[in-house]
């Protein structure tokens, strides 16, 4: 059992956990922050996405110990009080959800994208979001929501007081077959802005800490 210090949504936590424990498990099981979802356990669906130092990262394949001391933001920490983040608001306005199980991961990935690229084109949005799955198929609405949020955020940055016009719908790219199973998603992950590969590497390193059983109860 190791003692891991985590900074989540501007709060400090000390968690007693096996150092192999994933960040997602720490969030959900130890801290009862259940807004980040389990969807696949291998970083292929994006439901577990959180921000680490502002960048999207798959918490299910990130070892909690590897992000100790870094700034972690989960969906629960995105709004400022009652004021929603523009991306959250845009998802509501556009109705970019059905069952909404993917929504927190989608929103976190989109926030990360807009931080890096405040005016993404439609195809840049598609590329950046390719690692997030919405099984209900609300993708076109999610793209629209991200475009709307981008406009709102640009406007507030420019202090113009009104949203910049949203780029007109360009022809959307269609299904391309082949690639094989999810190769596009893998490619998207590889070039993702997160420290995903690095996180996997750190997973392999630090096995020195004694592994102890977690006690009964929490």
């Amino acid at each position, binding site marked *: 059992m190791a003692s891991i210090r985590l900074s989540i949504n501007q709060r400090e936590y000390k968690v007693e956990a*096996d150092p192999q424990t994933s960040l997602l*498990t720490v969030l*959900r099981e130890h801290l009862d922050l*259940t*807004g980040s*979802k*389990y*969807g*696949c*356990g*291998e970083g*292929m669906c994006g*439901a577990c996405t959180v921000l680490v130092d502002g960048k999207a990262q798959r918490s299910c394949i990130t070892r909690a110990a590897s992000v100790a001391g870094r700034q972690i933001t*989960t*969906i*629960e920490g*995105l*709004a400022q009080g009652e004021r*929603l983040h523009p991306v959250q*608001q845009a*998802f*509501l306005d556009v*109705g970019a*959800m*059905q*069952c*909404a*199980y993917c*929504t*927190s991961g989608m*929103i976190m990935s989109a926030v990360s994208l807009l931080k890096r690229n405040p005016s993404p084109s439609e195809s840049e949005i*598609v590329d950046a*979001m*390719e690692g997030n*799955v*919405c*099984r209900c*198929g*609300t*993708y*076109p*609405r*999610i793209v629209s929501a991200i475009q709307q949020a981008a406009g709102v955020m640009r406007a507030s940055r420019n202090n113009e007081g009104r949203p910049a016009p949203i780029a007109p719908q360009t*022809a*959307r*790219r*269609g*299904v*391309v*077959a*082949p690639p094989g*199973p*999810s190769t*596009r*998603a893998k490619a998207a992950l590889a070039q993702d802005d997160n420290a995903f590969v690095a996180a996997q590497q750190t997973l392999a390193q630090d096995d020195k800490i004694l592994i102890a*059983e*977690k*006690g*009964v*109860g929490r």
Partner: protein
Amino acid sequence: MKDRSFDTKTVRDGASRNPHSKFAKGANLEWGTRTSVATQVEIEPERYELAASAPYHFDLDRREFFRFLGAGVLVVSVLKSGVAAQESGGSRRGRGESLPKEIDAWLHINEDGKVTVYTGKVEVGQNIRTSLTQAVAEELHVALDKIDLVMGDTKLTPFDMGTFGSRTTPTMNLQLRRVAAAARDALVGLAAAQWKTDAKNLVAEDGRVRDRQTNRTLEYAALTKGQQIAQMLPDQDPLIPPKDWKIAGQSIGKVDGRDFVTGRHRYPSDQNLPEMWYGKVLRPPAFGATLTSIDMQKAEGMLVSVVRDGDFVGVSAPSTAQAEAAVAAIQAEWKSEPQISNKELFDSLRKNTTEGKDPTGDGDRFDAGSIDMAMAAAEHKLQQTYTVNYIAHVPLEPRAALAKWDGDELTVWTGTQRPFGVRGQLAEAFRIPEEKVHVLMPDMGSGYGGKHTGETAIEAARLARAAKRPVKVVWTREEEFTWAYFRPAGVIDISSGMSADGTITAWEFHNYNSGSAGMQSYYNIPNQRIVFHATKYPLRQGSYRALAATANHFARESHMDEMAHAVKMDPLEFRLKNLEEERLRAVFEAAAKKFGWGRTKAPGQGFGMGGGYEKLGYIATFAEVQVDRKSGEVKVARVVTAFDCGAVVNPEGLRNQIEGSNVQGLGGALFEAIQFDNGKILNGRMSEYRVPRFSDVPVLETVLVDRKDQPSVGAGECPMVGLAPALGNAIFDACGVRLRGLPMVPDGLKAS
């Protein structure tokens, strides 16, 4: 079309239904005798036990209701027997409970004017929590935020067979409108009594009753104060016609959307209780495997609770990691029989027919005219075979349940489309009366027909009983891919005959295993033989969004295209020539217009269509593809859908469902297929099973044919069925290659 109309009756003279339902038949999980997963799962139990009814004695105990709900105004909705049988199924309420079996919903307005509606339907992403709230708000004239829906809670809501088959909108939406209208009339009556005036002078608006002559008003809360008024749904309850709707008919976002974008909503897998442990189940290495030896000593030495009950072996522990470690420490030997692989699938289905029936569709066999004579006389004949593979639902939230025992009383929070069905399964598994089982269904992370069963509920309950504390079981993605059930694979043979002018004269259709839903042809064909053949099948199979209608429409609408080409007719013209149904013609024509059918093609471009009638809705889907024969790339550029589901309740919600159907449908049409061999799933991970992603989505255009003169019907399934044939026909149009198996291009278009 079946007559779906029904009128309401008071409870006392309302006929009851058969209490001896076979509904729970699929729930054959018995501890000590079976593995943890039933191999036979009932598919959509729509046709069960509609006939017989028995008298019952009912005495609605008002005091009970008001003790539970508080003072106010209560309206109870009762279905007429025929519909009750279909919607409410075999009532599983035990004796001694004084509720009539036909109650399908009730609405209560408390002393603060807050409206609470109780329905057994559940929210799985189809957004009925919103559309049903709209229906109530419309008729009751209250703001949306004054209304709460309690859904799918077996203690608080009336029995409901389940949320599937696109039944919520045509039945529950209408019932709730009636209930709300009755409540409104009751409130107007109270105001009239208070003011000693004629109710005709009064109107309900915006949460209050107003006197048109004097303009005085009374809030609903002031009217319900101190009241204990209960009433059954009256016979006559004129509803607001769709053309005058103000709240219904509008695009309204998820009523509790804010909880979802902030992560506050708790799905079944997010449930938590003090002292809760996490459960894991030991899985056999192959389907149907049985234990031959087991050594649990090492696991039992850990800080965990270990259970062996027959072939069920599981553990619970303070953390998931500990539970996993304990399961890994169990040494088990299994024995299993050799099983077929997906390579032998279609041969096997065709060769192993059984006497079974399909409970899902509208019938297993249809005959008209004389098929043999018509075939002999036909000038053009065509015979083809179509296939569909097994596919997985892949709900993004896997199955999950949290179970807790209080003595012999069991409470389970779980994700299911059939909370009352799961209650029955739990009662049967633990041999306790259903009154002792309480199932709650928090709005869940989708189902698509894949969560009709209660596997995790039973597992969590068994582990919780052993651990003497609450236990939560959440399946991993691999477990969900392996131990849930699949959409049935199938083989469809079609033989057809036409006269020289393209009139279809003969139609013979044989479906092996995929199911009979949507099997009947809506084209005018005088001579038909349509047969569903049950077969032995290798994987656990069950319901799926649109179920067999996808396979049957794919085969029928692909074949229609092949017939059109055989007589050198335009595929649209050919369809319309053989189609009388006015609403179906209308969607084909609307979609064709929007699509620009008949325009010139660019090289490699192809246009195709598919459509039909399913779950009371009418659909036509037109697709544009781009095919590169060199690379094998197939690109879907654009999909245009025209849909008629009667009067539209929530236009954006409806568009969302249609777009989602098309996106999800792309997967099964083009690349989704379960690979299996010898009792194992070979591609049971998200990295191995391709689902549609952002880049797969074409331009999606939707035409809503808003028929305000027609009753509103469901929209979660029908829009899916036109896509696969539209894509196949478009691929043929682009390059002359006819694809007759789903998925069509899992590895691109092979070189010819």
